[in-house]
């Protein structure tokens, strides 16, 4: 069954809100443009936590390494929109 990009977007926003609710961030809200490190102060372990939570939620491995690594190195940062697009492609590809 296809999962819509809108549903995936809402799921990811909800997970991010849960993760960051006690972090005292100066942020109006989480959108597709929100960046994990720059805006949400994610540490690398929080990114792994997000990956594990998403794979548990969607009950399948999503191969996030392809998104997290470029040229053999971790990417500096990721936007929520990039993650939504990646998960949508993986679930519906």
């Amino acid at each position, binding site marked *: 069954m296809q999962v819509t990009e809108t549903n995936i977007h809402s799921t990811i926003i909800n997970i991010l809100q849960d993760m960051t609710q006690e972090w005292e961030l100066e942020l109006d809200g989480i959108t597709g443009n929100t960046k994990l490190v720059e805006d949400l102060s*994610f*540490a690398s372990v929080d990114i*792994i*936590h997000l990956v594990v939570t998403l794979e548990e939620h969607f009950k399948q491995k999503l191969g996030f390494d392809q998104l997290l690594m470029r040229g053999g190195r971790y990417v*500096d940062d990721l936007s929520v929109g990039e993650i939504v697009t990646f998960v949508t492609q993986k679930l519906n590809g």
Partner: protein
Amino acid sequence: MPVAHLKAVDLNYLQLPQKLSLDSPLNPLYQGEQGIEGEQDSQNDIPSNLVMVHGLATNLAFWYHLALELSVTHPVTLFDLRGHGRSSMPENGYTPPQMAEDLRELLDYLGIETAHLMAHSFGGSVILDFACAYPERVESLILVDVRLRVLQPRQRLRDWPRWKRTQRILNRIGVELDEDDPESGYQILEAIARLQMRLPKGKHRLRRLLSKLVPENSQRTASRWLKLLETTSARRDLKNIEGISLEQLQQINKPTLAIYGESSPTLPTANALKEVWTHAHFEFVPLAGHFFPVSQPQALIASVKSFLKQLNYLDNAC
């Protein structure tokens, strides 16, 4: 991620199952049909866990990419040391022997009897203390750029192979450090964490420069490291580490891979360790500093895979 609620600490951990079974010809440890028939118990087909321990001021994500690759042949367990990552931050207990006890409790909690232990930097002191206390639970040791005080009592910045170059970078970003501090590793981690906390958002060029010096480039990790130093016994515990003794080192005879960056400040430990551990296999990664697991992960992955593969052949030959 799951959390192990232990006696004095809650440890965040992650387990990656082995991706390919030993009867898959795609598994580099595949022994052929005869090898499989030779196994008497299906339990024996599952290699021991590879448990990976990170260093100071970082977290389990330090190993994540390597762990994914190494989990092709072995189940892998990662965890955050106490006071790091998403683990809890008790007021005390930050010496390597105390953290080795955390590791023992975690292995008990997860039902892991024996394991291959792999660690970077400070994590190496933790697994060596573990190996001294519980040798029967260690299959092998993989030490990645580990400094040992007994072999390298001082680690001054002025002795670093690339210090002048690093100093120029630090000076450009406004960090002045004491070249003669014998525990320069802690000094540099703290100074960079303080800089990360006051760096405005969007200073990508500066952040990229910092990433050449430390593996973790987030304010959240920097703030946690500073909190650890300021609100717990960690600063005192880490400064006063006695460390493993020469006699204890000499008693460790597990299969060992010791791998160091050719330009790392921990090189004096490697050179001295070669004299102590004639049984160990040493490798040096060209053009690599202390954080080569991040800057050159493929070099480390290849060495570790080859080491574990060789161990597997030896096990099957016995």
